[in-house]
Every structure is written in structure tokens, then in C-alpha cells.
């Protein structure tokens, strides 16, 4: 079926090429025909020409000869005529009385024979007796002696004498003709013949149209010629080859060959000659070659014309015949091209009644059969195409569905809806449902094409695996259930659904996960029309997709939950880790501090002791020196110096003590805690701390008095904490509060100021709030910033380490994951707010690993 692609194109290009080959065939045959005819005609023509040339030539030769002979005869005749006329004058015998008669005869002769210019009559003795002339005067009885002249003697001897041609006045040709009488006594008549009059004879000799006959004497001088001026000009014809040849040939052998030569006028002529025997002249008959061969040329022209005409005819005939042959062939070729191009409907029409027609019929036959088989194939192709289109549609739909699914993977409802819709549409189903597992039972969760009544009907009815419903059967058997007609199926008993839905054909496909149905995809049709295998396959695909989708969602959810849990634990872990680190730090710090304190304690002791000893020594020295003999200046110096020494050493002792107390404080603060954390009643802890602090302060300072307020939340409950650490913190804060209050009292100095310290607890659910409030001096803002910094204190030197708040902060925040805040108004109050989480989860490990 590849021809379908571009049949039109094919025929166009095809048409271009065979046009040439078609006309090539045409040209071939036409040309061949013409060539054959041409060759035949040409051969014939040439042969004819050749033959006719030969013939013509022979005829010409013959004619020329005959003409020459005839001309010679005519010339001879002319002379003979004159001769015979002259002969009349020789009849009278000479005697005295005959002179007048003779004269009369002579005059008559002159009149008769215009050619004779002069006639002389000579007696037997050679004496001229009478001369009659046209031009000269007549002479009678002149007595001129001619007996010795050749004209007389020759005439007497031979009876006739033809004299040589001579030219009068170098122009006029004359000849002497002497004739003797039959009787000797008659004497001789001598005539001067004006040969110009031969011109009449010669010019009348017709040699073709333009041919000439002319006469030359034995010396080659032109005697007679149609153009008399040539004669009068004394033309010497010896310059002509033919004349030479003729004159040189042996007398008597008349050349019978017709030569081609040039005549006196320069034309190429065919020349023949014949002798005018007794005179010794030669007559030449010359015919221009053109004219001679004119008939031949004319014949050749005729042949050529005929050839041409025949060629034309042959060409026409050839064309005609070739066309008759080529046109059917071209029709065949065009038809074959059409068939090749795919157009099988047309039939070749060739009606020549010969093999070509048979061939055309064969072609048509073939085209017909091809058409049939094409039609068949076409049908098959159509069918297949339809099927493939369907498949493609389904595949596309599937792909689309999958796309949708992939896009909205976690929106299960949408996915299932889409699946059902697509499945129903593609399988040409009227209705459908998807049944999903919910917990332990299956419910029809998604429906399509069913009336609302049916949807309500089935919404809450679980599907039981069983044979009574299509879906149930699918669940039960775990394979595709195809019921062509539910009414015809004896196992199908769910009549209500069927009535509500109005379906007849049913297809239920279970959605399987690892071989276990997790749902069913059901499609139904209102009329009895079984689903095709392809459709069943498609639905199965969709069902698989649905199963996958459901599974995906489920997995996703569980993953989500797990992830959330993990994130939470991770966070807890991190916080705990931080606190642990902090505790470790504190522990190590405490360790360090303890270590240092311990270490320093020793040297400090030495310093203190030795300082004390040194003081005593100085006293002794003073005493010793008091007894010595010193002058007053020296004694005063000694007294100064010892006083200075004393003072210095006192300072040393003082500061040593201070250092000692610092070390003690440090040790105090770095004391390792209790180690364990446990739930402790917070109110109890606070109360305890309060009492401890109050009694401690009273013990330390006389006259210390402060009113304590307690407001404990009874629901504060227990808090899981490090009790000793928290106690320390509370002690610290309380102590600070005491200190501030006392200072304010000192500043107030007798006003109505009552130092007060309040402690409060509050239950905040999973955390507890502790508040310590004093109405002391308050904390200025710049101090508030720095108050939790280690070693920062506002107490005078020797009174505080600056570590208390810092450590408290760390304990609360880092060890207990709580918070500590301070609110203060300088000169009014300060309140510390501590929030501790209740549970143990957020506690760091105790730093009890020493």
C-alpha cells in the first residue's frame, strides 16, 4: 500500500519521462520507415541517375556525332551546290561565238549563287577569257594566263579544285573553287566563293539551344561561325585543344569521342567534329555542357523532387503508421502507470483489433483483479485500523488516567472517580461502581451513571463476597466476572439493585493486591451487550491501577505518620543532647572550678599563714629594734619602714582572705549535685528553699528582717527535676532578693519601707511557674542585660562571685529545658519568673558522673 502515498506525484513524474520514451519509439519507427523509404528511393534515384547519365552520355555522343556529320554534310552540300551551279558554266565549249552566252551564263550564275563574288572562265589553254564580278568590273577576253596556277592545273587534273581559304582585306574569308568541264576543251571555271555566305548554313545548324557549329580550315582558321564577327576577326581556332586534336588526328579517322573542352567563348562544351572531306575543312559541333547535361540535370531534379515528395509522403506515412502503433502503446503505458500509481478504477481503451488490444485487455483484467484484492485489503485494513484506533484510544485513555492519577496521587477519591469514569467511557458502559475496603468490609465508594436512588441504596450496604452480586462474586473468586445478562444468570440475586439501576450486562473486575482483593471495579450496561475481550482487558488494567492507587495512598499515609513521629523524636533527641552537653559542660566546669579551687586553696593557705607569721615577725623586729641604739632619724626610718611593712602585710592577709572566700564560694557553687532527677512537689521545694534562705540570712546578719509572702498553687503538683539544683537556684534568687531589699532599706533609711519577698507557684499544665518577687532596689536596664553573664555582679568586691545568676540560668534553661525571666522596675521591685516543664522527657541527664 505504499502507492497511496503520492499517486498524483508518481503519475506526473512518470508522465514526463515516458513522453520522451514514447516519442522515442515513435521517432524510431517513423524514422525507420522514412529512412527505409528514403534509402530505397535514393538508391533507386541514384541508380537511375547513373544509368541515365550513361545513357544520356551515350546518346549525346551519338547525337553530337550525327550532328557533326550532318553539319559537315550540310557544309559539303553548300559547296557542292555552288559546285554544281558552277558546273553549268563549264558545259559550253570554248569558241568565239560563245562569249556572250558565257557571259549571260556567268551573270545568271552570279544571280543564282550569291556566294560567288567572281567567276572567271578559263579556256583549255589556261587563259582567262571572261571575268564577271560583283565588285570589280567585268573583264571580257582579258587573256590572263592562269595555266600555271594550281587552280587551273588542279582543276584540269582532278576536275575540281578547292582552294585554300584566304581572307580578303584580312577580314573576308574567300575560297577559290575551280571546276573543269567534262570536255577538256570546255576549259575551267574558277569561282571566288565568299564564305561569309556559309554563315547562313552554319547558323542554321541547330545544336541544342546554345550550341554552335563552326568550320575551320586545315590550318585551324575559323571559316564559318554563327557569330560572323569571329570569322571576320580572323580567329585562330588552334588555341582550342579539340581543334588541335582534330586536325592532328589522322585524316580519315574521324574522332568519334565526344570530349569536354572549352570553346572560343570560354564555355565548357561537349565537342564533336567531322571532316568536310574534299575541302579539308573540319566542322565542329559544340554543345555547352550545361545544356548537354540539362536533360540529365532536369532528370536529376525531377528525381530529387520525386524523392522529396516521396520522402514527405514516407514521413507522413511513417508518422501515421508509427502513431497508429505508438498511440496504443502509450495508452498502455499510461494505463500501467495509472495502475502502478494506484488508480485501479480506470480501464485502458485500445481498439486496434490486434495484439495491443489483447494486451490492453490483459491489463484491464489485471487492474480489475487488483482492484478487488485492494478492496479486500482495504476492508481488512479498515478493520484493523479500527481495532488499532480503539486500542490507541484505550491506551491514550489509560495514559491520561495514569497522568491524572500521578498528578493527584493522594486524592484517592478523585483518582477512583477518574478511573471509573474513564473505564466506563472507554468500554462503552452505562454505569459503574468501585468498591473499596473500609476496615473489614467493602463499600461501594464511587459510582458513575447510577441514579441517585441507587447510590443511596448501596451507600451503606456493605458488599459481601458471594455469588449473589457481581461485585461479591468478584471478591469471592478473585477473578474477572463477566455476566452477559444478570437476569439470565441464576446466581445473581440482587434484584433490587438491578431494578434500581436497570442494568443487564455486568463486568466486575477485582482490584488485587498480592492476590488479595482490595476492591472491585464494576461496569454495567443497560442492554444485553457483552463486553469484548479488549474491554475486559482494559477494565482489568484500570482495576489494577485502582488497586495500586489505593495501596499508594495507604502507604503514603503510613509513611507520613511515621515521618512525623521520627521528626518529633529527632527534635527531642537534639534538645536532650544539648542539655546533656550543657550539663556536661557545667559538670566539667564545676569539676574544673573545684579542681582549681582545691589547688589554689593550698597556696592561699601558705600566703595567709606566712603573711600572718610575717606580721608577727615584724612586731618582734620592732620590739627588737626598740631596744637598739639608734638615732632618732634611724628610728623614725625604722618605725616608718616597719609600719609600712605591717600595713602591706595586713593588706596581703586581707586579700588572701578574700581570695580564700572566693575559692570557698566557687567550691560552693561547683558542688556536684544530687545526680538524680525525680518528681518533686514544687510547692514543697519552694517552701523549703524559702525557709532555708530566710534562716540562713538571719543567721548571717543580725537585725535582718523581711516579710515573706507565699502564694502557692495547690495544683502545681509535681515536677520532674534535679531538686538540689533547683534549690540552689531558688536560694540564689531569694538571696538576691534579700540583698536588694536590704539595700533599699538601707537607702530608704527610716522611711516606711518594708522589705518584702513573695514566692508564688502556678500550674501551667505541662509546666509550672515559680515567681520570686522582691521590692528591692530593682535592676537598671543596663544591668538586666548582663545580669546572667558569668562573673557579672553588682555586689561590691568580696561579696559576690558573679556566678550565681549565670549558673541559675544554665540550670533552669539548659538542664531543665525551662525558662527564666526577670521583670524589674528600678527602685520598686524585681520579679524572677521561672517556668519548668513538668515531664522528664525534656530533662537532660544529671551531671553526676564524676
Amino acid at each position: 500500500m505504499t502507492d497511496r502515498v503520492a499517486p498524483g506525484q508518481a503519475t506526473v513524474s512518470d508522465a514526463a519521462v515516458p513522453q520522451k520514451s514514447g516519442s522515442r519509439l515513435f521517432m524510431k519507427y517513423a524514422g525507420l520507415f522514412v529512412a527505409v523509404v528514403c534509402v530505397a528511393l535514393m538508391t533507386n534515384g541514384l541508380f537511375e541517375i547513373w544509368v541515365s547519365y550513361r545513357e544520356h552520355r551515350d546518346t549525346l555522343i551519338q547525337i553530337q556525332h550525327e550532328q557533326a556529320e550532318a553539319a559537315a554534310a550540310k557544309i559539303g552540300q553548300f559547296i557542292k551546290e555552288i559546285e554544281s551551279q558552277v558546273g553549268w558554266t563549264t558545259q559550253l565549249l570554248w569558241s568565239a561565238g560563245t562569249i556572250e552566252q558565257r557571259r549571260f551564263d556567268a551573270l545568271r550564275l552570279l544571280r543564282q549563287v550569291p556566294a560567288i563574288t567572281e567567276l572567271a572562265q578559263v579556256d583549255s589553254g589556261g587563259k582567262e577569257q571572261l571575268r564577271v564580278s560583283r565588285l570589280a568590273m567585268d573583264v571580257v577576253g582579258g587573256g590572263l594566263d592562269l595555266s600555271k596556277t594550281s587552280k587551273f592545273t588542279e582543276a584540269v587534273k582532278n576536275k575540281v579544285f578547292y582552294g585554300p581559304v584566304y581572307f580578303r582585306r584580312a577580314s573576308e574569308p574567300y575560297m577559290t573553287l575551280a571546276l573543269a568541264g567534262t570536255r577538256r576543251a570546255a576549259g575551267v571555271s574558277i569561282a571566288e566563293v565568299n564564305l561569309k555566305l556559309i554563315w547562313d548554313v552554319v547558323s542554321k545548324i541547330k545544336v541544342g539551344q546554345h550550341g554552335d557549329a563552326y568550320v575551320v580550315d586545315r590550318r585551324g582558321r575559323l571559316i564559318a561561325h554563327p557569330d560572323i564577327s569571329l570569322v571576320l576577326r580572323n580567329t585562330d581556332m588552334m588555341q582550342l585543344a579539340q581543334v588541335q586534336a582534330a586536325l592532328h588526328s589522322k585524316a580519315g579517322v574521324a574522332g568519334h569521342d565526344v570530349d569536354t573542352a572549352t570553346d572560343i567563348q570560354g564555355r565548357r562544351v561537349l565537342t564533336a567534329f567531322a571532316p568536310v572531306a574534299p575541302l579539308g575543312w573540319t566542322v565542329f559541333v559544340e554543345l555547352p555542357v550545361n545544356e548537354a547535361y540539362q536533360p540529365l540535370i532536369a532528370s536529376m531534379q525531377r528525381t530529387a523532387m520525386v524523392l522529396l515528395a516521396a520522402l514527405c509522403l514516407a514521413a507522413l506515412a511513417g508518422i501515421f503508421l508509427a502513431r497508429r502503433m505508438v498511440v496504443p502503446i502509450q495508452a498502455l503505458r499510461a494505463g500501467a502507470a495509472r495502475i502502478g500509481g494506484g488508480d485501479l478504477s480506470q480501464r485502458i481503451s485500445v481498439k486496434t483489433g490486434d495484439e495491443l488490444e489483447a494486451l490492453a485487455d490483459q491489463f484491464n483484467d489485471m487492474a480489475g483483479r487488483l482492484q478487488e484484492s485492494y478492496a479486500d485489503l482495504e476492508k481488512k485494513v479498515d478493520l484493523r485500523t479500527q481495532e488499532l484506533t480503539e486500542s490507541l484510544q484505550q491506551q491514550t485513555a489509560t495514559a491520561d488516567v495514569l497522568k491524572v492519577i500521578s498528578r493527584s496521587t493522594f486524592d484517592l477519591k478523585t483518582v477512583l472517580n477518574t478511573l471509573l469514569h474513564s473505564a466506563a467511557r472507554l468500554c462503552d458502559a452505562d454505569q459503574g461502581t468501585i468498591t473499596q475496603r473500609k476496615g473489614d468490609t467493602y463499600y461501594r465508594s464511587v459510582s458513575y451513571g447510577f441514579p441517585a436512588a441507587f447510590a443511596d441504596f448501596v451507600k451503606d450496604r456493605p458488599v459481601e463476597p458471594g455469588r449473589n452480586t457481581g461485585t461479591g462474586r468478584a471478591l469471592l473468586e478473585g477473578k474477572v466476572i463477566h455476566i452477559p445478562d444478570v437476569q439470565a444468570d441464576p446466581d445473581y440475586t440482587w434484584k433490587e439493585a438491578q431494578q434500581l439501576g436497570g442494568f443487564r450486562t455486568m463486568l466486575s473486575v477485582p482490584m488485587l493486591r498480592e492476590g488479595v482483593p482490595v476492591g472491585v471495579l464494576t461496569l454495567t450496561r443497560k442492554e444485553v451487550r457483552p463486553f469484548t475481550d479488549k474491554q475486559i482487558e482494559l477494565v482489568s488494567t484500570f482495576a489494577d491501577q485502582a488497586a495500586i492507587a489505593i495501596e499508594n495512598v495507604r502507604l503514603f499515609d503510613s509513611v507520613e505518620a511515621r515521618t512525623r513521629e521520627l521528626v518529633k523524636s529527632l527534635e527531642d533527641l537534639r534538645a536532650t543532647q544539648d542539655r546533656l552537653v550543657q550539663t556536661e559542660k557545667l559538670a566539667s566546669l564545676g569539676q574544673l572550678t573545684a579542681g582549681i579551687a582545691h589547688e589554689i586553696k593550698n597556696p592561699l593557705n601558705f600566703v595567709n599563714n606566712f603573711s600572718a607569721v610575717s606580721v608577727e615577725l615584724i612586731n618582734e623586729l620592732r620590739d627588737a629594734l626598740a631596744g637598739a641604739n639608734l638615732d632618732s632619724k634611724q628610728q623614725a626610718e625604722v618605725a616608718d619602714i616597719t609600719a609600712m611593712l605591717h600595713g602591706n602585710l595586713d593588706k596581703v592577709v586581707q586579700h588572701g582572705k578574700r581570695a580564700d572566700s572566693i575559692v570557698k564560694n566557687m567550691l560552693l557553687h561547683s558542688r556536684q549535685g544530687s545526680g538524680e532527677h525525680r518528681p518533686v512537689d514544687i510547692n514543697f521545694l519552694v517552701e523549703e528553699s524559702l525557709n532555708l534562705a530566710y534562716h540562713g540570712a538571719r543567721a548571717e546578719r543580725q537585725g535582718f528582717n523581711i516579710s515573706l509572702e507565699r502564694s502557692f498553687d495547690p495544683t502545681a503538683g509535681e515536677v520532674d527535676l534535679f531538686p538540689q539544683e533547683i534549690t540552689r537556684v531558688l536560694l540564689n534568687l531569694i538571696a538576691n532578693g534579700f540583698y536588694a531589699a536590704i539595700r533599699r532599706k538601707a537607702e530608704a533609711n527610716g522611711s516606711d519601707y518594708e522589705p518584702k519577698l513573695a514566692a508564688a507557684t502556678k500550674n501551667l499544665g505541662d509546666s509550672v511557674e515559680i515567681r520570686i518577687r522582691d521590692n528591692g532596689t530593682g535592676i537598671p536596664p543596663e544591668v538586666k542585660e548582663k545580669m546572667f553573664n558569668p562573673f557579672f555582679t553588682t555586689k561590691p568586691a568580696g561579696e559576690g562571685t558573679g556566678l550565681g545568676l549565670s549558673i541559675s540560668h544554665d540550670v533552669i534553661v539548659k538542664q531543665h529545658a525551662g525558662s527564666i525571666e526577670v521583670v524589674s522596675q528600678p527602685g520598686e521591685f524585681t520579679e524572677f519568673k521561672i517556668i519548668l516543664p513538668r515531664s522528664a522527657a525534656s530533662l537532660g541527664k544529671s551531671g553526676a558522673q564524676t
Partner: protein
Amino acid sequence: MKRREFITLIGGTAATWPLAARAQERERVRRIGLLIPARADDAVFQTRVGAFLQKLQQMGWTIGRNLRIDTRWATTNAAEIRRHAAELAALAPDVILASGASTVGPMLHATRTVPIVFPIVGDPVGAGFIDSLARPGGNATGFMNFEYGMGGKWLELIKQIAPAVTRAAVLRNPATPTGIAQFGVIQAVAPSLGVVVSPVNVRDAGEIERGVRAFVRAGKGGLIVTPSALAGRHRDLIITLAARHKLPAVYIERSYAAAGGLISYGPDFIDQFRRAAGYVDRILKGEKPADLPVQAPTKYELVINLKTANALGLTVPAALLARADEVIE
């Protein structure tokens, strides 16, 4: 398609053929000039010129189509002849036909390049018109109208027809060398016939009359009229005089005998003109006059006017009659 081309080719060729042929015919128009020593009303010359033109026409030259004729009737006046000769020469025609020595001479003076054909001239060699009869050379050729020997013949004829004649007057044109020579020839043979000759000049009518009258004072006279244009001019006068004075006269040409002259012996002048036409034709076709030989007459005709003979009371001998080519009765 090639059929059509072929037919076009054939048709085209056929169509152009006659065109090509016709093209040839459009040759240039030739001009010839005629210088005639006679008046335009001279009947004899008219006949001669007519014969000449007719012969030309026979040879394919049609006046108006390919030929133009310029005829000058120059009379016998030498000055007129000279003038016409100059004019004709100035026109430079292809050929000039000049009749008689009286015209050929002045014509040759006027031009040496324009071909001149003379239908009648007595002695062209002697007159210096040509180099020789066979090859004239120059630009003039033509036909002689007599031989000097004829002078004797004429005398002989007079003696034959009128044996009583013992004196002859020779009418001649003394202006031309031929005229003089002719007289000389006749004079040379006269004694042999026993005739005494004397010349008469024919320069003008008056001279002729006087001459003849003077001649006839003595008796037994005859006339020999040598050929010259002047003689032709005064033909009738001469014949009248001859008749009046009962003089037997011999002329050269038939026209005299036809007009009443007694006897004439000479060539056919009309034929001469025809032959001249042939020469003109040849010259027009390209031949050079130098190559065309001057031809002598071939035939001489003897014409006898019996009426005049009877009027003169002469008996024509039988021999003469037998000899005559034409007898006018």
C-alpha cells in the same frame, strides 16, 4: 509540427522564385543615341531607323522599359551635326548609332569612349575611324556600305544600260575623303570603258543644279551618284534633274531606284541598319566595339527601274535584266 514547417518551407521557396526572377528584370534602362544626317521628315531614313528599332525590339530591347532612344535628326549641315554630336556625347549614352561618314567623324571628335556603331560608312579605314576591318580598335565599329571597286561597276552598268554614254558626272561630297576617293576610283577605270568622268559637288542643292546643268550642256552624259548623306538629302532633286535632262543615272541604293532613279547597285541599307542593331545589342550586352569587326556587305542588289528606262528611251539588255535582283515597273 514538422509537417507544417516543411510545407512552409516549400511554399516560401515557391513564392520567392518568381520574385527572384522578376528582380532580375528590373535592370537598368539603357540609353542609345541616334545621329542621323537627315531631316526628321526624311522618309527613307525613317524607314531605316524604324527597321533598326524593330530589330532591337526583336532582340529584347523595349523602348521605355529597358531602353531609351535619343534620336538626333542632325540634317546635313555640318555645324548642326557637330552640335548634335557634342550633345549626344555629353549625354553619355551606352551606344551611339551614327549613320554615314558625315556623322561618324564629328562623333568621334566628340567622344572617344562612347561606343559608336555606324550602319553605313564607305571607307572607315581610309577615313581613320578604325584601325582595321578585322579589329577596329577604338570605340567605333559598324558596317561598310560599299567597296571602292563598285565605282567601276557603276560605270560599267551605265555603259551597259546606256551604251551611248561617253561622259559621266560623278556626284560626290568633296568634304569627305571617301567622296574624293570614290571619284578617283571611277576616274581610274573610266578610260577602260571609254568614258570621261567629271565630278559634281553635292554640298547643296544649288551646287547640284548648277553642276548638272553645266554637265548637260554637252551630250551623251550619264550620272553616277556616289553614296553620301548629301546625296540622300537631295535624292529627289537629283532624280528630277536626271529625268529632266534625260540623264541615265546609277545610284547606290534601292531607294533611289524606287524614287525614280534608273538603276541602283549596292547593298541593302535597311539590312545594314538591321545588322547595326545586332551590333548595338551586342555592345549593350557588354562587348567592346574594338572587338567587333567591321563587316562588308554580303549582298549587293541590282535594281532597275524600267519605267525610268522607258522614259529615257533606253532598252535594258537581257543580260542585265537577268542579272537584276529587282525590276521596278
